[in-house]
């Protein structure tokens, strides 16, 4: 995809370029050849490149047509939803995905995902699935890859859980193999595939339809601990933290906290976080969060007793509606382009400090 196109998409995230792009993908997917591979993750494998392995399933042409149908149906539905006002937002790790939005991620900015995708560059060359125990235990997702007649590969990812495996599913499958009303339990290994897709990628564009599953597929929960530690360090440079190590340890225990902290430096409010503003909010909302003096510096104190409030405070979750003047606690926030009045107000606010 051309650079100006990508730039345009960033400027107008919910405008037509996405629609056209999805339309192109849907058209290309309708006639391409289909490969389905299973992705297995082994966190302790060495070297790190061997932590994710893919194996290809072999099937006949009617099965390929079914998978092709799943992809095209999803892309067509996405097109229709875009026409009905579905918003495409830039990916933000710590922000909850609303029902009326999908997210877009530029893969050039995410080296870790690109590394994981490298193996899928030539799906035909993947090893054939062999149902070995070590591969099965790490099974995390499957990928429907479509190679159009012209253009780049389209990869559609779906998070895998044991319900997709016939032998481990909580459902029991019965098949009419002998006819005349005899239904026998299926004891041969097999998979079930639903008609959902969690994320679609082509070239260096990733469209995220189900963020939670996307983060599980690409192991964000594993990387996020490391990112959270870095984010806490960055926060400490802006707002002195009395017990830095304790916050990092808490993030290691709680992946949801880690995700929110890891995304903090990329949030628009981060650059405006100051101790005085934090203290003002603590006082305004009468929050239990404490500060303490350490020499000449005032520091924010973390305690597990007020973990939720501490996190909401840092993530700027206490918001006020300018329409109704009601106050909310919201974890789903997207920065909007500031209005002229708001720009003037924030200039004044900055002047006040």
């Amino acid at each position: 995809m051309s650079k100006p196109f990508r730039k345009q998409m960033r400027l107008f995230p919910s405008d037509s370029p996405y629609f056209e792009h999805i339309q192109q993908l849907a058209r290309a997917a309708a006639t391409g050849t289909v490969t389905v591979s299973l992705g297995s993750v082994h966190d302790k494998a060495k070297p790190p490149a061997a932590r994710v392995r893919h194996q290809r399933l072999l099937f006949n042409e009617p099965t390929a047509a079914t998978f092709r149908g799943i992809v095209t149906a999803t892309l067509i539905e996405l097109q229709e939803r875009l026409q009905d006002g579905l918003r495409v937002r830039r990916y933000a790790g710590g922000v909850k995905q609303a029902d009326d939005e999908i997210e877009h991620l530029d893969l050039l900015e995410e080296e870790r995902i690109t590394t994981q995708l490298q193996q899928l560059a030539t799906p035909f060359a993947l090893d054939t699935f062999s149902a070995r125990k070590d591969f099965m235990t790490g099974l995390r997702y499957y990928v429907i890859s479509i190679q159009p007649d012209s253009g780049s590969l389209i990869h559609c990812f779906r998070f895998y859980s044991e319900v997709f495996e016939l032998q481990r599913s909580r459902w029991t499958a019965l098949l009419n193999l002998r006819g005349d009303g005899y239904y026998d339990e299926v004891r041969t290994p097999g998979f079930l595939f639903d008609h959902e897709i969690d994320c679609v990628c082509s070239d260096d564009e990733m469209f995220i339809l189900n963020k939670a599953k996307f983060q599980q597929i690409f192991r964000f929960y594993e990387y996020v601990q490391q990112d959270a530690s870095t984010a806490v360090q960055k926060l400490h440079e802006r707002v002195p933290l009395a017990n830095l190590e304790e916050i990092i340890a808490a993030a290691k225990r709680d992946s949801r906290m880690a995700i929110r902290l890891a995304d903090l430096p990329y949030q628009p409010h981060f650059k405006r976080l100051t101790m005085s503003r934090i203290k003002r909010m603590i006082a305004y909302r009468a929050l239990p969060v404490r500060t303490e003096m350490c020499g000449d510096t005032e520091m924010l104190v973390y305690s597990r007793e007020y973990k939720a409030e501490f996190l909401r405070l840092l993530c700027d979750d206490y918001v006020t509606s300018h329409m109704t003047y009601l106050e909310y606690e919201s974890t789903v926030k997207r920065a909007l382009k500031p209005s002229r009045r708001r720009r003037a107000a924030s200039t004044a606010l900055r002047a006040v400090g």
Partner: protein
Amino acid sequence: MLNMPARLILFFSSYTPLAVIFIILYLGRSWPVVVLASLGAATGLCGLIWIMYRARVDVAPASAVVVDFRQCGDDVMGYVAAYLIPFVGFSLTDLRQGIALLVFLLVLAYLYVTTDMLHINPMLQILGFHVYDVTFEASTVRRVITRSALRRGELLQLVPLSGDLQIGRERP
């Protein structure tokens, strides 16, 4: 992917030319040899045609862009020279020589089906197939058996046969 019986059929098919030579040599001299060689030749030929057809029909292909390729003909010439021509001198009417030939064939069959030699088969060339070492995108190299002549930049449909061996399928 090929199972063991299919691999064995491929092995026997590679000896179809030798079976034909035996038929010519023993015609009118030893009918049992002629009958056995005819059966072997027919099984090998039909088996090969059936396997190549099923492999291309049973599995949905993947496709990849051909970056570069090299035709492999040396292996087949070596195979013919080393493993087919020496048998021509064997006398199949002599029991000792017959058993010796059988043992040698069994060893060869074992090596053929357990190592990556399935593409070395003179019958493939006789039936109009070409064997190429093809470099695809991401520097992936695979051995491809195909009926059509390859072109650089072409999107080739591929069906796995065994290990790194693929069958190139003509686009419908």
